[in-house]
């Protein structure tokens, strides 16, 4: 306690801004909040959450968020009591150089810490998941799940667990035309290897370029391996060209043998969503089904049963809700193996372009299916088999909660393979806002601020009316509607209004000619505007530089300047705008009533 008092005394005697901002105390409260959050995240995320909660959302879903909000409110209230006890500027004490910059920076850092408990909390859950799902063990379980899933899934979106291994991305060297910056840019998409399958996919980084017409072939042979390409990007052929080609950006290696192996399914699975966009004549579902049936045909039922049993064991270990009977599933597979589909009639016949969907026959109410048995090993009637298959496929009695498995594995991936995007910068904006607010009341009179609110509101209404006038005036019809010109006019109008406020304020403070009450309102408004001002100038540049140009590719609308969308730069410019305002405060405070 004595030590704390000594620190406090030291700060009071030597660093009045830090003492006044209570930076250290806030920081300690923030760090304490981080520690509590981390521990809470670790402890609250149990087995039940593992399969039901996304680690990114768990903070919001758990009660911890309420605790954190209350914690922040209490800390900020207590802090504010001490913060407002002393005020150097209102007492006209001499202020050190960059007083407000220092004060704001300290508050900004401390508040950012305080409000960002989401991150330690989530990292706590990540660490818990890492402990619960160790890589080696989990990879083995995932392999079992992948393998077993091929046999227990039975609907159109079957085999829907995302690949547990990130498919390596091609390193592509290509150029494309940037519409915004109006320049040709190069792009490299670097692949990274999955943790466990590095060896399997080695050598991929040597592959570059366009791999041909994807519509014509499903796979390409390279170095004795078959590759299936999917996920393309449209890119210009060269900087002088208006023609674009499809470039392959992602691919998978196809299995070379019929040996039952988990990679077969993993690779196929990864193609699922993007694959269809390539207009191939076969769906992933069909490919998997065919593969399953091929194994069935080869009478590998023992290994299939083993795979299903393993699948169920893993599910039970993580308490995934399921009701599966391996014997029934095997019976189903055997039955399907001997179905031979001869013809399809009904409205869907042509729509699928002669494509046969192996699952569709189970819905006789949609169209009629004629079947005959080619093998008498399964002595069931057509009606019985149809009803049986239908029951299985509709999952009335056989089911497992795929979402739970997906969630479990998503959490595993996010924890171990850094897929968790913290987005920490968004919390900096919250910290910025709080620091911004409390620095405002460091120099602003609360009454004048309250007066500013309605005046600002009226001004906003007037600006809105002005915008409506700009956008609806003239010959308004959709055919002649010049979107860009009206947008330009609107932005310029808003910018002018804001500039008038800012310039008037600066003039009023420097010239000392304004009534103090009017100036109070102007200063408050300018303070609120200041973080946006630099960004507005960039926005103005972007808008004003926009124009139509005749190019080889036709008439194009181009902008000479980039619009700032990166949050880091937005924040930096907001700081710059605010810091530019701070020198005004001393001059403003010194003005007579």
């Amino acid at each position, binding site marked *: 306690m004595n030590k704390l008092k000594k620190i406090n005394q030291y700060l*009071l*005697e*030597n660093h*009045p801004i830090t*003492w*006044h901002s209570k930076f250290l105390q806030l920081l300690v409260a923030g760090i304490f909040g981080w520690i509590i959050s981390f521990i809470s995240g670790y402890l609250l995320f149990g087995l039940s959450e593992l399969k039901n909660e996304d680690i990114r959302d768990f903070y919001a879903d758990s009660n911890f968020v309420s605790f954190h909000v209350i914690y922040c409110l209490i800390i900020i209230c207590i802090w504010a009591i*001490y913060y*407002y*006890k*002393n005020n*150097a500027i209102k*007492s*006209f*004490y*001499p*202020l050190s150089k960059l007083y407000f910059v220092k004060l704001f920076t300290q508050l900004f850092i401390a508040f950012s810490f305080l409000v960002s408990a989401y991150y330690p909390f989530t990292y706590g859950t990540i660490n818990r998941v890492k402990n619960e799902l160790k890589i080696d063990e989990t990879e083995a379980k995932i392999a079992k799940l992948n393998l077993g899933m091929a046999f227990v899934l039975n609907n159109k979106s079957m085999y829907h667990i995302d690949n547990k291994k990130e498919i390596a991305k091609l390193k592509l060297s290509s150029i494309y035309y940037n519409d915004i910056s109006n320049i040709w840019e190069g792009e490299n998409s670097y692949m990274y290897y999955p943790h466990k399958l590095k060896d399997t996919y080695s050598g991929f980084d040597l592959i570059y370029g366009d791999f041909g017409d994807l519509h014509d072939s499903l796979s390409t042979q390279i170095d004795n391996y078959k590759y299936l390409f999917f996920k393309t990007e449209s890119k210009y052929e060269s900087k002088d060209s208006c023609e674009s080609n499809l470039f392959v950006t992602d691919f998978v290696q196809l299995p070379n043998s019929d040996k039952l192996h988990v990679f077969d399914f993993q690779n196929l699975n990864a193609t699922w969503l993007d694959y269809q966009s390539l207009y191939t004549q076969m769906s992933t579902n069909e490919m998997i089904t065919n593969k399953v049936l091929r194994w069935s045909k080869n009478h590998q039922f023992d290994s299939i049963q083993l795979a299903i049993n393993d699948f169920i064991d893993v599910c039970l270990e993580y308490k995934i809700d399921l009701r599966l009977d391996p014997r029934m599933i095997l019976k189903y597979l055997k039955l399907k193996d001997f179905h031979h589909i001869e013809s399809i009639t009904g409205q869907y016949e042509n729509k699928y372009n002669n494509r046969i969907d192996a699952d569709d026959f189970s819905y006789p109410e949609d169209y009629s299916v004629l079947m005959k048995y080619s093998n008498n090993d399964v002595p069931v009637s057509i009606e019985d088999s149809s009803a049986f298959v239908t029951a299985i496929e509709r999952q009335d009695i056989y089911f497992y909660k795929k979402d739970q498995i997906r969630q479990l594995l998503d959490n595993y991936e996010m924890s171990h393979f850094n897929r968790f995007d913290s987005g920490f910068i968004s919390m900096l904006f919250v910290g910025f806002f709080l620091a911004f607010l409390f620095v405002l009341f460091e120099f602003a009179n609360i009454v004048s601020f309250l007066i500013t609110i309605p005046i600002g509101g009226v001004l906003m209404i007037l600006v809105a009316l002005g915008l409506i006038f700009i956008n609806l005036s003239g010959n308004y019809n959709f055919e002649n509607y010049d979107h860009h010109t009206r947008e330009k006019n609107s932005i310029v109008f808003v910018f002018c209004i804001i500039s008038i406020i800012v310039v008037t304020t600066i003039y009023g403070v420097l010239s000392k000619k304004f009534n103090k009450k009017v100036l109070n309102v102007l200063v408050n408004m300018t303070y609120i505007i200041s973080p946006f001002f630099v960004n507005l100038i960039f926005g103005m540049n972007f808008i004003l530089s926009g124009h139509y140009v005749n190019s080889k590719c036709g008439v194009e609308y181009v902008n000479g300047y980039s619009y700032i969308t990166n949050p880091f730069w937005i924040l930096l410019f907001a700081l710059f705008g605010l810091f530019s305002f701070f020198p005004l405060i*001393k*001059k403003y*405070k*010194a*003005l*007579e*009533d």
Partner: protein
Amino acid sequence: MKLFHEKLNIVSSHIHSGDYHLGFRKLVDCVLDTQDKAFYKLCIDFADWNESDLRNDAEFVERAFDLIQKLEKATFEIKLDKKPLLVAENVSKVYGRRKFKLGDISISIHEGDVWGLVGENGNGKTTLLRILAKDLKFDQGNLQYQIDENASSDYDLRTKLTYIPQRTPKWYGSLKTNLKFAATHYGIKGEENELIVLMMIIRFGLWKYRNHNWDELSSGYKMRFELARTFLRSPKLLLLDEPLANLDVLAQQLILEDLKNLSQSLSNPLGIILSSQQLFEVEKISDKILFLKNGAPTHLSNANEEEEQLTVLELDILDSRDELNAALERLVGHEIKFNGGTYLVSIPVKNGMNQILQALVNHNIQIRYVRDISQSTRRLFF
């Protein structure tokens, strides 16, 4: 250092006479004059003991003289030249619904000057002080400050212009913390901060209250706190609006005496302008008086040059006005005014108080109260 030694002799004289409180306060002033940390430490130890239960008069005297002996060897720069601080030329302001006009005010304040600002309520005293403190705009005239050569902005100037309003704003936290916070901003850091703050606490008799907060202090101690805070700022010009309001008689005397002494500090003399309704007390310490009536100024120095041939008495009697008229009938040129409470009696004679009293005694007039206000602004209130 002759002036300093004279101050020390006065301190010794007070202590010899048994005026320990007064002697101690003046001793602290001498220590503050030295601006020497070593003497501050000695003084703080002394004050700590002086406020403790161990205090006794014999030891007090011994310790005090021990400190005086040490102070006699002190050397520091004495500021003898009284630099001008503020020159106001025909400053005026019109304000309010009734277009009240303050001014034209022309004054010149130097280091060490104490100006008393008197006048009835609503005559522009606070307005004038706020104008001088650069808190309020004026319409016409010219104000020149020569307070801080390094002041690069109005804000810097205002850090040196200390204005204490009649109603001092509430502050939060302990008294000592607030003083330290002020001192730190004025560049007094580290050990020096602690020493100077404690010296101010001692000087303004706040030792026992140093850890108290605003709510725990009486009005008098709140004013003392404001003064302590103000003096930490090493002010050049101090503007006080009714500092004696809400103070008891003893506290008023103490504060006025302190202000006078501090204004004439040997190392850091300052100019003071204070407004007050306590005419006689203010006149006692002021070098010059500015009387405001309906916003218009009347300058009076303590030497009443314009009307020095006049004797004016403020009088309260048990008898009627007729009897008073009869009693003063033989005094040539006498004038009597009555405001409902007291009489104002004047005769065109210098130092004629005895003549008036003699006439009243001869007529057996029962006197309840009498005061010679020939040289006081009190007579301007009639």
